[in-house]
């Protein structure tokens, strides 16, 4: 929508113009972990709804995975990497405590050196927070294109319940103006709900996070996801049935299924983005990978509601509309390799 003097409008609606996903080729089945700890494999698998999870190789980390996803996203967006001038990377496993993943990405992906960069942490919602920030920068005209990344090589204490689901992966989104060639999905609105809730945390000198058991449920995940979804629906005057696809943060399959049901969404709406069943919980990349899956298959005009959750706690919501038919990612031809528990433990050491 150009103004009469031919310039681009100064407050373009932001849209996703490219996306990428990176998953390691290693997997470990829930059953394998359960057997190692002497638990009943089928009851654990069915209670979590997660069959297997991804495992990063020992030469992979949040940076290498974010790089691969970012490269794919920029390729799909069909722009030169130097046209991207902002990158925000969200993770709970940034490779350094001080020295940002986003800066390393800007250099490795050969983005515009005059680039806004910073790392984000908000447990599993750091990736969507990055999307919100980039969307705002595009909307305000501060940048033409920006890259939002969620990446994690999630660590879980061996023997802890989290071990079944804490996995590794990255997703990246190029966000630009909705009139950009190949713009895929317009971001209509974003919303966040935040409190101070000690459901899951990791002290800076600790290797593994700690969590508060069942307290992570209702006061944590359910409350915040509910608030942000209800808030978004109210703001946009939409009803659950107006949403074609619902993508939620997925610590397992049961939590999103329950909150969706409670809020009046159907299983069909949740189905496409429910990737946790095959790849586990990729933390900051989790809901982003679910969104990517939807973006591959959705049809023009489909309305997507994404709600992620980060412990500590907060929930982000993004409401989007497909501008065209979904675009498939290039297939990953590497053979998937299932690990035994001992190989998995060595790899994670």
């Amino acid at each position, binding site marked *: 929508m150009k103004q009469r003097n031919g310039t681009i409008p100064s407050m373009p609606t932001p849209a996703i113009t490219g996306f990428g996903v990176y998953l390691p080729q290693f997997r470990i089945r829930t059953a394998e972990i359960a057997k190692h700890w002497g638990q009943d494999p089928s009851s654990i698998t069915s209670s979590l709804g997660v069959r297997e999870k991804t495992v990063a190789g020992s*030469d*992979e*980390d949040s940076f*290498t995975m974010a790089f691969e996803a970012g490269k794919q996203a920029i390729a799909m967006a069909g722009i030169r990497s130097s046209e991207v001038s902002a990158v925000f990377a969200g993770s709970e496993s940034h490779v350094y405590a001080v020295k940002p993943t986003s800066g390393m990405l800007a250099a490795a992906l050969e983005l515009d050196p005059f680039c806004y960069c910073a790392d984000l942490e908000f447990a599993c919602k750091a990736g969507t927070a990055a999307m919100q920030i980039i969307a705002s920068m595009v909307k305000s005209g501060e940048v033409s294109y920006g890259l939002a990344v969620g990446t994690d090589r999630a660590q879980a204490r061996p023997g802890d319940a989290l071990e079944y689901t804490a996995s590794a992966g990255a997703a990246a989104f190029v966000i630009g103006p909705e009139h950009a060639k190949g713009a895929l999905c317009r971001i209509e609105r974003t919303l966040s709900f935040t409190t101070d809730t000690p459901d899951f945390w990791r002290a800076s000198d600790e290797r593994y996070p700690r969590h508060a058991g069942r307290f992570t449920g209702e006061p944590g995940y359910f409350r915040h996801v509910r608030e942000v979804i209800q808030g978004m629906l109210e703001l946009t005057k939409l009803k659950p049935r107006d949403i074609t696809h619902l993508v939620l943060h997925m610590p397992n399959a049961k939590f999103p299924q329950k909150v969706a049901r409670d809020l009046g969404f159907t299983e069909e709406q949740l189905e496409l983005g429910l990737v946790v069943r095959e790849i586990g919980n990729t933390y900051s990349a989790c809901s982003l990978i679910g969104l990517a899956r939807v973006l591959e298959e959705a049809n023009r005009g489909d309305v997507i509601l994404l709600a992620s959750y980060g412990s500590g706690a907060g929930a982000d919501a993004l409401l989007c509309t497909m501008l065209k038919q979904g675009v498939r990612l290039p297939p990953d031809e*590497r053979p*998937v390799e299932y690990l035994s528990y001992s190989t998995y433990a060595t790899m994670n050491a």
Partner: protein
Amino acid sequence: MRDTPPIIHRLQKKRAQNFQEGTVLSYTVLAHPPKTFKGQRTIGLIELEDGTRVLAPLLTRHPAIGMHVHPRMRLSYVTNEKLRVYEVAYESPVDVPASVPEGSAILTRGFPGYILALTGPSGVGKSTVSLLLLQTFSEYIAQVPILTTRAPKESDEDEYVYVSKAEFDALHAEGKLAAATQIPSLTEDRWYGYRTSDIEAIWSAGKLPVVITEMHLLEQVANHYGRRSILSFGLLPPGNSKRKMLSALLHRLRQRGRDTEEAMQERLKNAEADLAFFHKRRDLFDHLLVNEDLESLMDVFRKNVPGLSEA
């Protein structure tokens, strides 16, 4: 190794230009690399697309000279001062094992777990392409025979193995078929399938099994062995719209003169479904080729099938 921050900084600036696809010129597996690296390390001398050569880790477990590789960003090691050094490593998208039997002179190629599939609608010229493919690369590939319950036809070559319905059902029940599908026709119910033993025999002979197939069988083979075990090529007729493609197909079917008008119309209906399948199940195809020029098609295979580059 000197790995002070200025040295690492300069080294990492050069990384971006190595992020290209390439071909393996030589490789080795180091039993005892320098202590900074943990465990064995496979290094390749790789020629990149722009002609430059690099020495870099190979992520594939079974490297082979001539193998085509893709770049990957990987962590190389962490310095004593906890700085992380990253490198571009190279992997083969399809892990093709190459075994060297004791005392043998040339690396023999074994392809266990990996199948080449060529799928296309009737009349697109699959037989012509597959015949040339099998002739050109006869040392490396072998066609998987198609089991069928229909009666032999005069126009059949030797790509079929004819079995009775009862035999077919028995094999199916015993789980000895990698794929089985029924193609209903006006005249008879025909079942088609592939025996796992036929595929395995080709692997044991050190060759790559090729299936010249249609969409249902392709889907099933992908389900049986795993999607990533198939290097899948789709063959399309020339034409930039469905209508043009269908008319090209009809023209070829008429030229072939093998079928009655009725049978041709049926083939065309199947063809329409086939073309829709290419779009809907694009995830089952690694490459979509247009059958226009046979020589350039052979080059595409040469370039994209590991091991065939030397043929």
